[in-house]
């Protein structure tokens, strides 16, 4: 359970996040939808406690994440963007590293690792070094290490960005499974189809503000567009051809690949 209350974050003159409030209940998938530079990544960074909000509150499973970020991190599994890997370690070692940092070890770690490797279909490459991985294999590795400790809340920043069809399907499958297991899943995307296929609730964000939220049907009704993509364009004001000017690099979702 994640709830966000009137979140503000600015970089210099730019209000990257400007009064965002929403909540993501247990056992459901919430999609943070918005065009590039809308404030999705910044919102997620505030949620996973690496950025401090200028104003506003974040509660994760009842823990005040602004006041006690360390405790909140135990309840979080995060796939940030970028999600760099260590080229000289294998996927299995990545999972073990993060598992041990989270306090999972021994037989429990073994069990979780095997479970994840099977679930994400990683057994074939799990003992090779990351340096030679494909983009999909990297994403799977990053995802596996992020949820090795079986966190209640899972945050994913553009998890399917740049993936091919099969890998995208695998990630979607994981998201569905996590939901079925009762996790709270919150992920960001700028791809309409992705969000509509997976989410129970869609939160549309543009220029740091929430412009609409609800089920896909709610959004259609609100905007009067039958096509969800048209609804998205109408909501985020993209048809006026605007994007927040002068967005600083910190507020933009930048990505960098591990050197191969």
């Amino acid at each position, binding site marked *: 359970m994640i709830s966000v209350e009137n979140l503000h974050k600015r970089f210099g003159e730019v209000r990257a996040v400007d009064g965002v409030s929403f909540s993501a209940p247990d056992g459901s998938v919430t999609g943070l939808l918005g065009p590039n530079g809308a404030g999705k990544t910044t919102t997620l960074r505030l949620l996973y406690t*690496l*950025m401090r909000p200028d104003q506003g509150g974040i509660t994760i499973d009842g823990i005040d994440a602004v006041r006690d970020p360390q405790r909140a991190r*135990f309840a979080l599994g995060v796939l940030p963007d970028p*999600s*760099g890997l*260590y080229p000289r370690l294998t996927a299995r070692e990545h999972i073990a590293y993060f598992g041990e940092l989270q306090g999972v070890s021994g037989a429990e770690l073994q069990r979780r690792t095997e479970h994840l490797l099977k679930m994400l279909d990683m057994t074939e490459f799990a003992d090779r070094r990351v340096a030679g991985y494909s983009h999909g294999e990297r994403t799977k590795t*990053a995802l596996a290490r992020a949820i090795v*400790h079986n966190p209640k809340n899972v945050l994913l920043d553009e998890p399917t960005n740049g993936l091919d069809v099969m890998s995208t399907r695998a990630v979607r499958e994981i998201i569905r499974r996590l939901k079925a297991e009762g996790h709270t899943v919150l992920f960001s995307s700028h791809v309409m189809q992705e969000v509509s296929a997976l989410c129970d609730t869609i939160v549309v964000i543009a220029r740091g503000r929430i412009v609409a939220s609800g089920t896909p049907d709610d959004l259609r009704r609100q905007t009067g567009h039958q096509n969800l993509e048209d609804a998205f364009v109408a909501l985020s004001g993209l048809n006026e051809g605007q994007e927040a000017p002068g967005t600083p690099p*910190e507020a933009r979702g930048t990505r960098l690949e*591990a050197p191969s």
Partner: protein
Amino acid sequence: MTSSPFTQALVVCRKELKDWSRDRRSIITVMVSSLMAPVLVGVMFTQLANRQRSVEDVSIPVVGGANAPALMAWLRQQAGVTITDGPSDPEEAVRTRREPVVVVIADDFADDFKASRPAQVRIVADGSSQDARPKVQRVRQLFQRYGTDIGSLRLIARGVSPVVAVPLQIEDTEVSSAQQRAAMVLRIIPLFIMIAAFTGAMSIATDSTAGERERGSLEALLVNPVPRGALASGKWAAATLTAMFTVLVSGALLFALFQYIPLQDLGLRVRLGMPHVIGSLAVVLPLCPLLVGIQMYVATFAKSFKEAQSYLSFLMLAQMVPGMLMSMSDVKRGVWTYYVPWIGQQAMLSDVLSNELKTPLVFVIVGVVNVALAIAAVRATAGLMLRERIIFGR
């Protein structure tokens, strides 16, 4: 499901070491940097020894030797001296370094000599040539001795005691012991060992800070519920271990080498044994934690591996400055010198190598000072990892 910060630091340390041990480039760096000191020192000492030995056996090219047959005969009788025919153009031969020194006997030598006038012997040498200097000195001494001998004989022939012509008795008393002279030569060794420690630590110190930023892995790592202090200490411990490893390898090679170096030929009556090895390691090893702490702090500011390396190469030059100043100018050594990192190590190492260490307490104090500063550096690094500019700024 929680684990203590100490366990977490261990996990980080183990991961960094594993990562490091798989990087061929960093292993090569360690090998090369630990070999650097022994190889350089070996070459330098062997060359010094050879030069010393070659001075004893001197061959003197003489132009116009026929003008002074008695002098030539006397020279030939001197131990280790051989006379050869000099080149036609002595100045050119010396300038082009074909000959280290050439002696020219003037044509009117015999006439002047017979008339008891100062007869001319010209020594052609290049003062800027370091190699030739001892040889030139030896040649000059030979002629001076001949001159003094002949002078005394002339005075005796005139019924005057030669002592009258020696108003001063100049005596050189060398204060520095042979060991101290050795220590002066050996003073460059700590510099090399410290460079080895520096380069040995560099891989992890940059890879685990700037490297994490460049790869974009820092964000994911920091999301884990690990106190920043534990994270920084784990990385720091791993880098410190590699630095110490490099020092140990370098030290072992160096002292193995000393068993074979002809130190006696240098006129140095030193024996370097186990106590010196242990003493030197006890001096340099406590510096490693601090060295690594500073490296990590600096490297954390860098956005990329390359940027970090350029920062650190400046740092490496900076760490050499105090040592160089100490060995070039004779800075007054006081108690304070021991407490300043780098200078302290320098001072202590030369004490250890010349058997002059006053009290072992100094090890303890210097160790405590270094570790305290190291902890401060690690804490500062942990502080950097909280900054949004560092975590996200790329």
